[in-house]
């Protein structure tokens, strides 16, 4: 049986892909196409995701309908802005390949690089 952490990612994948509120049953059915997974396990993990703030839910008759609180792109944008935020000390927690070149420099360096490559053929 896959670990909870791994399942969290797979379930979020499904919810994001669905694009509309889903039942636990929908997710189980989608997951079972690729792996063996118990209904109760999925239910538990989705509860965890709800408590962690990843999923929102609303009662629909006797079951809950779940949907993602934020689209995936939003989280991605947040991660990137955190990692590349060089002004606050949050950014200090990461090492990044910085992109601080001016257009003029890019052209100049590109040319230098090309020449070095040509010279490098004989190396």
């Amino acid at each position, binding site marked *: 049986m896959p670990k909870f952490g791994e399942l969290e990612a797979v379930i979020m994948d499904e919810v994001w892909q669905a694009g509309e509120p889903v039942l636990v049953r929908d997710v189980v059915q989608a997951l079972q196409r690729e792996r063996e997974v118990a209904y109760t396990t999925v239910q538990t993990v989705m509860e965890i995701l709800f408590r962690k703030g990843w999923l929102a839910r609303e009662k629909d008759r006797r079951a809950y309908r779940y949907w993602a609180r934020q689209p995936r792109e939003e989280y991605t944008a947040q991660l990137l802005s955190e990692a590349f935020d060089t002004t606050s000390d949050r950014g200090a927690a990461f*090492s990044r390949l910085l992109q601080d070149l001016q257009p003029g420099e890019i052209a100049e360096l590109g040319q230098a690089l090309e020449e070095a490559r040509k010279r490098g053929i004989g190396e």
Partner: protein
Amino acid sequence: MSVALILWCYAAVLATVGATTLRRAGWTDRAPRLAIAAWQALSLSIVLATVFGSLALAVPIPQVSANLAELVESCAMAVQARYATPGGATLATGGLVLAALIAVRGVYCSMLEFSHSAAVRRRHRETLALVGRAAEDTGVTLLDDDRPYVYCVAGRRHRIVMTTGAHTRLERAQLDAVLAHERAHLRERHHLALAAAAALVRAFGWLWAFRVARDEVTRLVELSADDAASRTEHRLSLAEAMLTLSAGAPPSGTLAATGSTTATRIRRLITGHRPLAAWTGALGMTSALALVVAPLIALATPAMTAGPDCCGNEPARFAAADECAAVNRDCW
């Protein structure tokens, strides 16, 4: 008193002349790892010299004696004597408070810095686990985004993260070079060096030397990772990758103003550079170590050779601390 003065002067010289010299030194770009060690030694030495200098005020250094009991006695007497005189008491208390302040602030800010950046990274990793997906060929974490970004999250469960924008733009050789660069960051634990330098700025940011140290370490870890990548991959591939990533990235106004370290790094990769000879490196390492040990020696030397307090007289010759203090009062 003189020991305190020597140590404080030592710290002052390191913080001014020392930092300026090291920043201007030409060899740092040729041996970035050594240069990082040198900046760390310089920083640590400044802190140690100030703390020990203040301590030297509070605790007059007694003569080291073969007999432990005698040593303890003379030490106690010397301290007693120092506190017996009004001027001595003020000086001693002041020294003690100063030493404690510096030490406590240094430790507190370090803990804050390290735990804060670890917490930021942990939360970041948790989000990554759900939002990113693993690339099958390289094992890096991929994020769906058209902008070309590459970075790494250090720590016990470290990750190299790349946007799909970067992944599609880079050719195989360039991709390998970029990954080698990031892996060097992780392997050499650059995040610890960065956090240590940042901690000192957090604690004593008013000191110019510590701000320079942080900026230099930030620059040098990149050079070090570039060098490590150049050892296994072609350095021109790395230069190309950096250029590709820069060309595809949206311009950022705040960064451009700082002047580009990236341009310098790319030029360095294109021209190649001669690394420092091994013996020069060994010499540098020894110097760095000497820098740190110097304040310890300064503190220990008078205790080994010079006479104790009581104006250089043997404390044992005085019947009581009062008498020793009386002598001290006369000569201070």
